[in-house]
Structures are given as structure tokens and as C-alpha cells.
């Protein structure tokens, strides 16, 4: 599998403080990769750098082998839900169309192709019937699906998800996990950050352990057997319940 998204030896400093050091990570089309690490490990910084929102001090970021595309709005991004203005008087379909604002260009109105992309994205996340509903009236899970549809409307082969399960109940998490897996199967590269270890272990094709740099990548089964690696990444002791969860997977 060729990498749709590749970060090669990327270092990032924020306010003069190094946050990422020589981080290397590849995500291929067709796979769902979970990015795991403790608070302050640099997960969000890595996503923001991949999106072109932060300029790395060194290193290279490529989308389908192109080192400039990530800075031109070519990556679908699903932010954390609290970053979106849900009180805004706007319908579901209008939010999804806003995902095409960058691709449309200044002053251009949406055309048939744009509405087709919105229709497809809404259908993909099963929100077609709620397309005219004001977003403020949606549940947490529906809101998450709207944000995913907005990212899908861009038509990008790469999708970045920032903590998509936070604050959601178990059935909604299950529904979203199925959605993310099926999006990856449709030839997309999907990278998500999460604190939900169980969800990541059971739903992701590969995991990347991050703490200042990418310490290891591998399938959940491969990494679950490496207890020392998890202790190093999360700074936990040998008695941590997290290691018991890993034993179950390994």
C-alpha cells in the first residue's frame, strides 16, 4: 500500500518549545490508523501540522507524494465537536456544503457538482433525512456525523479525526467506529487521535504510539505484546490497568 499521507522526520516547535521531534508516520489508503499518546504528547500538534496549520521546523509532509497539497486544503478534517459553533442558525446540508468553501474558491457559488458531493456525503453518514434540520437540534452522535460529512464533501483521500469519541455513549461510538472503518475500506487514509484505548485496539488497522515523537507503529496485536513500549509512551507503572487491557488483546 502506498502512503496517502506521509510525515517524514517532522519537528515542530511551539513558542520555542519542541513539541514534536523527527516524527515519522505513514497512513496508506484503505487503513484506519489510531494515534495514541498521553496529554501533551503532540497528537493535536501532529494533526495541525499535517493540515498545514503549523509550519514544521524541519521535515516533510506529503499527500499522495505531493509536498505542497496539505497546505492547499486537500485534507478532510474532523475537529473536536466543541470547536464548532453549534448554536449557529444553519442547517445540516449548509454545514456540509461549507466543507467545500475552500475548493470552490472565492466568490463562486455552489454548482450541481457541489450539491452532488453534499448529497453523497450525507448519504454516506446516514444523515440524508435530517439534511434540513438546524444543527443546534442534533444529538452528539448526529453532530459528529455532520462533521464527518463536511470533511467527506471535500472529496479528499485523506481524513483526519481529532478525538471523535469524546463525550459519546457506547452505541454511538460503535456506530461511528463502523463508519470510520467503512470509510477507510473505500480507499481513504483515515488517521484518528483518541484517548479511548479499547476503541482504538479493536477498531484500528494500525496504531501509532506518540510521545514527542512516533515511538512505534504496528497492528494492535503486534503492539499489545510490547508492554514496555506502552509504559514508556504513557509513563505508567507495571501495575497499570492499561496493561491488563493489552494482555486481553495480545
Amino acid at each position, binding site marked *: 500500500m502506498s502512503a496517502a499521507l506521509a510525515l517524514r522526520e517532522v519537528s515542530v516547535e511551539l*513558542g520555542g518549545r519542541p513539541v514534536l521531534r523527527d516524527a515519522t508516520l505513514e497512513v496508506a489508503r484503505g487503513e484506519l490508523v489510531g494515534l495514541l499518546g498521553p496529554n501533551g504528547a503532540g497528537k493535536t500538534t501532529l494533526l*495541525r501540522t499535517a*493540515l*498545514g*496549520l503549523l509550519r514544521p521546523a524541519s521535515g516533510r509532509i506529503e499527500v499522495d507524494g505531493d509536498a505542497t497539497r496539505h*497546505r*492547499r*486544503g486537500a*485534507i478532510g*478534517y474532523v*475537529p473536536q465537536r466543541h*470547536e*464548532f*459553533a453549534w448554536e*449557529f*442558525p*444553519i*442547517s445540516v446540508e*449548509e*454545514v456540509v*456544503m*461549507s*466543507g467545500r*468553501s*475552500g*475548493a*470552490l474558491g*472565492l*466568490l463562486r457559488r*455552489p454548482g450541481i457538482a457541489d450539491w452532488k458531493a453534499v448529497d453523497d456525503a450525507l448519504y454516506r453518514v446516514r444523515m440524508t433525512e435530517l439534511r434540513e434540520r*438546524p444543527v*443546534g*437540534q442534533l444529538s452528539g452522535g448526529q453532530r459528529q456525523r455532520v462533521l464527518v460529512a*463536511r470533511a467527506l464533501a*471535500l472529496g479528499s483521500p485523506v481524513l483526519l479525526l481529532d478525538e471523535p469519541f469524546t463525550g459519546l455513549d457506547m452505541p454511538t461510538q460503535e456506530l461511528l467506529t463502523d463508519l470510520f472503518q467503512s470509510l477507510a475500506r473505500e480507499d481513504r487514509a483515515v488517521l484518528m487521535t483518541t484517548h479511548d484505548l479499547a476503541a482504538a485496539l479493536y477498531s484500528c488497522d494500525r496504531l501509532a504510539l506518540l510521545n514527542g515523537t512516533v515511538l512505534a507503529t504496528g497492528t494492535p496485536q503486534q503492539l499489545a505484546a510490547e508492554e514496555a513500549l506502552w509504559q514508556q509512551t504513557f509513563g505508567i507503572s507495571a501495575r497499570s490497568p492499561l496493561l491488563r487491557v493489552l494482555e486481553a488483546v495480545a
Partner: protein
Amino acid sequence: MSPADFLTDLLNPDLAFLPKALLVAVVSSIVCGVIGCHVVLRGMAFIGDAVAHAVFPGLAIAFVTGGSLVLGGTLAGVATAVLVAVFSQNRRIKEDSIIGVFFVAAFALGIVVISQAPGYAGSLQQFLFGSITGIPDRDLYVVAGTGLLVLGIALLLHKELVTVSLDRESARALGLAVFWLDLLLYVLVTLAVVISVQTIGNILVLALLITPPATARLLTDRLALMMLLAPAIGGLGALVGLYVSWSWDYPTGGTIVLVLTAAFLLAWFLAPRQGVLAKAWERGSSRRRGRLEPH
């Protein structure tokens, strides 16, 4: 005074300032209503207040030197917005504190400048509280032209402005120039404020930006409808306000603001779904349904 008498006065050639004041008040209310929707939905009322105050030194300099009030006010507003943007880069002090420092400083500068003009007290009062007399004919063209320009830009860049308002980080990720769109919105707010200052005054102009859009928000969950309702409420409020002010000899700016505030309170209580009464009725209905359902 009856509405018919007011209409007669509007058509009286000896009272030519009255229809001009009405036209300026209604046009500026419409423009402020549309731009104010962005201000209200982004929760940037404080920035709107800051811009309203920041235009004052420009207006004062233009007034003292006989220059264009629109140009002077716009330059001062934009200069203050840029200063706030630059100084906000220092993360030790939050943006609202920076805004607080600069808009009061700009206002103080305006007072110092206008104190150098002959008839200082009268000029200051006119700027602060508005006046319906003394609007020159050329200002009608400036207000109409500027208003059309502001509405045109807001319409053309509607999807970009909305995308930024929804979620700034994602807007940046989509490749939108968020900083420039923010600056453009400040400029549009500035222009809307500048064309409104003459009739309603510098202190009260914030009401034109905030109250009609806030009222419209209580009435609808649709952005397009909100952007039609807000200027309609603002324009109607200006018309009714001017009528009341002319009939009972009240200050124009203050009367328009009080009429708009009354509309807001009406919507607060009587709005079909979000109003206090509708919610109380809904709660009562739920309780009644609960009592009737078998346990």
C-alpha cells in the same frame, strides 16, 4: 402627531432635512442589520463596540479638517483593528484586554481632537448622540454608495464568512485566509458604523449592529431568514423611532434604540418557539400530558 402629519412633514420642502435623516437612518439600519448578523453569531459584540468607538478619532480629524467623515472613520477603525490584531500576538495579555486598551484610547484621542474645533461642545454632542439636522446632500450619496458596497461584499463573501464563523480551525484547514477575512469583516463593521454615526451617534450605534440581529435570532433558526429579518427590523425600528422622536421631540438616536429594544423584548417574550411564553406553554403542555398518561 399622527402618522399622516408625519408624512406631511416628510414632504414639506421647509423640512428637507427630515426625509434625508429618515433615508440615512433606514439605510444604515439595513446595512448594520446584515453585518450585525455576523457580529452577533460570532459573539463579537465587544469588538463591534470597540470598532464603533475606534472610528471616533477619524471622524473627529475629518470634521476638524473638513475631510470625508466616511474615509476618516474607516481609516481610524481599520488602524485600530490592525493594532489589536498585532498586539494580540502577545499571549500574556488576552485579546479582550487589548481591545479594551485601544478602543478607549481611540475614543480619548477623538475627544482631544474634536476639542480643537470651534463649537466643541455642540460638535461632540452631535457625534456622540447623533443629529437629524445638517446632513448634506453629498452624504446621502456616500451613505447609499457605501451601504451598497458593504452589502455587496457581504453577499459575495457570505460562504467564506460563514465558514470561518462556524469553525476557524477547519476554515484554515480548508485553505481560507482567515486573518484577511477577519480583517475584512472589521472593515465592513467599521463602514456600517461610520454611515450610521450621523443620525444615531457614536455611543448608541452598537444597538443598530446588535439589537436587530439578536431579535431576528430569537425568531428563526435559519440564517437566510435571519439576514432578511434583521435589516427589516432595523429599518422599521429606524422609521418608527424617527417618527416618535419627531412627534414628541425626543433625541433621535436614543428613541430609535429604545424602539429596537422594545422589539427585542417583544421577541424575547412572544417569539413562536424560543419566546418565554411559548416555552412556558410547552412546559405546561408536557406536564398536562404527563398527568393524563396512564402509569
